[in-house]
């Protein structure tokens, strides 16, 4: 009896569960489109060449929660993606044509000696809470960024020639910025400084980067970007709503942005992201889209896709060029025998010639990556040196380079061993992070180097451990890592100058360890002080030539930016530089 009741009750439970599923499916929770406030337009609004429809919501996946709502504290890409849409700068970097254009400033002019920049602000611009923007807000921003107590992420970039910029108010809508010496990257630098609302932050006594955390009420924050933070649900999503006071208008003189809301959903798992995109619960996938998934989406019905081209994310391989002693053990950081090989330019060139980048692009990136020839990707139209080929894949040349520097081989074909000039077998270890792409790339390089007779092992460690090894412990042979390179040469100073902490092959040198590093230091300082674009290009081109010849860093591939979106989203202008699919978001609209 009880047996039958049990079986029957379990069947009934199953049936009830099914019923719940079916009935719950019928409910809908679509939000109503918002009605746009009718507020007077700024006297000097910026006109954008666009025409679209107003309203609607864009749903975008982030790999996790942002860390802050304060651009000045935003280090990682999630915060920068969200907060970047709520701020604006004096000048604007356009990801499409990669030029700096007018922003909050309607015009700007350098003095003949290049040390003074006179800026006229647009009149009639208001923060998202309705307060007007004046020169006082600009002055306040610089004052708080230079605050001694502050460790904000923009402070270092704002030190030109080791000195802070002097910002002076001429009138409510005119300021003058003085540089201790001419700065070639001045315009780009200003395009990265968000202007903060003095009226909201003047009473914040702590360092500025500690303001506006995730629990700050949205009404206590305001910005000049196309959107404002509207709601934040910890661990779930952040909702941005249009800024009713935004200062850009479309071709018909209507205030942008077209979208009512952008919803950032925090979805860490890539499979879940893809499924939610396919289930039309997400509208765009870009930074997080894997090449295999992109390939599957290409040609799918009801999905738009674009391979935007190489990003500034470069997979690079380098030998440890540290020759110093470890102060703790008083022993060399690196085995002197290996150090001898790595200091040999011919050896480094041969390593570069032995790596088959095309195979890596095909096998690791399913074809969605681009061969790298210099540190600067081909998509960086301003600074990439197109005529430099570097030491590309050429096994015969690799052998020739090694022979000419005294290396030899023993053993027959297929089981050869490379011997150094002293007859020692060449063996090395590749240090890389525990990441699928890095691991597979390391395995491909291992295969290529073994074909040259080098015994190679791979050591994979968690990223922070790898950084610790490279920057401090320095006890590694070779390293493979992907890094994001900024698009402005002055921002790469820390990597290229010999004293830089990110001069990964031999960081923080007291004085340049080699003549070519000394020359790079000289050229990097020079390009920083030149205002003439062509002369800057020439100086930076020479830097790229030296790097290509000396090969301290072997550029392997640049990952391509892949974007997929739902076809009802129009006027999307994906770019190969940040913020990728969300570039020029004010002009994006939905088909009703």
């Amino acid at each position, binding site marked *: *009896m*009880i*047996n039958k009741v*049990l079986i029957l009750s379990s069947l009934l439970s199953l049936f009830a569960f099914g019923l*719940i*599923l*079916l009935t719950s499916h019928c409910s809908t929770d679509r939000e109503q489109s918002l009605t746009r406030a009718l507020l007077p337009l700024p006297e000097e609004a910026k006109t954008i060449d666009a025409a679209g429809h107003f309203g609607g919501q864009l749903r975008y996946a982030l790999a996790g929660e942002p860390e802050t709502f304060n651009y000045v504290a935003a280090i990682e890409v999630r915060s920068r993606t969200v907060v970047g849409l709520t701020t604006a700068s004096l000048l604007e970097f356009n990801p499409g044509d990669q030029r700096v254009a007018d922003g909050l400033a309607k015009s700007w002019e350098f003095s003949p000696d290049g040390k003074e920049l006179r800026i006229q602000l647009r009149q009639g611009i208001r923060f998202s809470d309705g307060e007007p923007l004046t020169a006082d807000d600009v002055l306040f921003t610089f004052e708080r960024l230079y605050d001694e107590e502050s460790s904000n992420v923009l402070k270092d970039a704002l030190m030109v020639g080791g000195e802070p910029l002097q910002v002076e108010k001429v009138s409510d809508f005119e300021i003058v910025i003085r540089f201790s010496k001419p700065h070639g990257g001045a315009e780009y630098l200003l395009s990265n400084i968000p202007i903060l609302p003095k009226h909201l932050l003047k009473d914040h006594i702590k360092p500025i980067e500690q303001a506006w955390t995730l*629990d700050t009420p949205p009404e206590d924050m305001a910005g000049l970007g196309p959107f404002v933070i509207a709601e934040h649900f910890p661990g779930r999503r952040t909702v941005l709503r249009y800024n009713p006071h935004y200062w850009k208008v479309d071709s018909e003189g209507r205030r942008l942005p077209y979208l009512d809301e952008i919803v950032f959903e925090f979805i860490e798992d890539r499979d*879940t992201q893809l499924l939610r995109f396919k289930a039309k619960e997400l509208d765009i996938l870009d930074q997080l889209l894997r090449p295999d998934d992109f390939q599957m989406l290409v040609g799918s019905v009801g999905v738009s896709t674009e391979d935007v081209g190489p990003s500034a994310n470069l997979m690079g391989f380098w030998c440890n060029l540290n020759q110093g002693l470890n102060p703790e053990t008083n022993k060399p950081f690196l085995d002197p025998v290996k150090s001898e090989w790595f200091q040999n330019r011919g050896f480094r060139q041969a390593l570069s010639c032995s790596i088959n980048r095309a195979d890596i692009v095909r096998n690791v990136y399913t074809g969605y990556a681009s061969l790298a020839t210099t540190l600067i990707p081909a998509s960086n139209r301003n600074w990439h040196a197109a005529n430099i080929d570097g030491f590309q894949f050429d096994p015969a040349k690799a052998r020739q380079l090694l022979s000419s520097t005294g290396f030899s081989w023993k053993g027959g074909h297929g089981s050869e061993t490379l011997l150094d000039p002293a007859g020692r077998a060449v063996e090395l270890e590749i240090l890389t992070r525990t990441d699928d792409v890095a691991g597979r790339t390391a395995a491909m390089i291992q295969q290529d180097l073994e074909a040259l007779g080098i015994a190679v092992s791979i050591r994979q460690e968690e990223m922070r451990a790898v950084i610790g090894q490279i920057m401090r412990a320095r006890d590694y042979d070779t390293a493979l890592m992907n890094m994001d390179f900024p698009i402005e040469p002055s921002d790469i100073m820390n990597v290229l100058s010999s004293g830089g*902490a990110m001069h990964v092959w031999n960081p923080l040198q007291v004085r340049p360890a080699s003549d070519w590093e000394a020359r790079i230091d000289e050229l990097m300082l020079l390009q920083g002080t030149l205002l003439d674009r062509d002369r800057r290009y020439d100086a930076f081109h020479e830097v790229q030539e030296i790097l290509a010849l000396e090969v301290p860093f072997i550029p392997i591939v640049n990952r391509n930016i892949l974007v997929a979106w739902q076809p009802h989203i129009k006027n999307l202008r994906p770019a190969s530089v940040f913020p990728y699919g969300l570039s020029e978001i004010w002009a994006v609209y939905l088909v009703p």
Partner: protein
Amino acid sequence: MIRFAWRRALESIPVLIVLSFIVFGLFKLVPGDYLSEMELNPTISSETVEKLRHDYGLDRSLPVQYWLWLKQIVKGDFGYSFAQRRPASDLVMERVGGTLVLTASAFSLALFLALILGLISALNVGRWPDGLSLWLSLAGLSLPTVLASIGCLYFAYWTGWLPVGGADTWRHLILPSITLAIPSAAFLARTLRLELIDTLGQPYVRAAVAKGLPEWRVVWHALRNAANPVISLAGVTLGGLLSGAVVVEKVFGWPGLGSLIVDSLLMRDLYVALNCVLLASFFVIVANFFADLLLALNDPRVRCR
């Protein structure tokens, strides 16, 4: 009873202290810290990183850092999230509700399924319902949580009956709860089956049947006697549910402690990780305490002890 609760609470303090020290030690043993990733940013100088390291106290030795943290706790300050620049306890409290809801729902589901499957099996030993129930529980035990989670997501995607991840309505809770409940339900069902088979074979049960007691009353008596090990194990299972929640929360995008633990460990956000681990351990201790209480309620012999 109150003395029993006090004793258990006091016993848990050294456990939590040792655990916090282990987490602290592990953080220090692994190279790199929260600021390591910042060192890869070409626009930030090493001086800025070092200043931050000093401000955050990351340049201090392990015992000093630990001692300062213990002193802070006495003042009610559980540390600071490096990433979010606000109190670590705030972050943890924002997420704890999510994990509690998910774990409670998964635990109830696991108990319900275990009871049904265990009873069906034990009352039909050797027949097809027993075989089916055994097979189901074996499958449930063998199925890795990640695979079950992804399988459930595909189910939601293909049928369109349920949302693919997220955490807004009760519908979002269904699939994560099922995924999380499967292994625990299977484990508890098998234990209950064995205990019940053993109890139903006891002379006093046969005597009760011979005296003509209704079947449901016989089974009820047997169930109460067979329940002791299951109740103890259920307390332990709750700990397993919390660790399973780490995977399930990640895959389904459920905002709970699990995903916060993983993120803070990966980012080396020391005090957030520490708060999460301690709170999760506290839950396990509380769950075991309640299991002991239930045991006492169910079995008068335990009460006498």
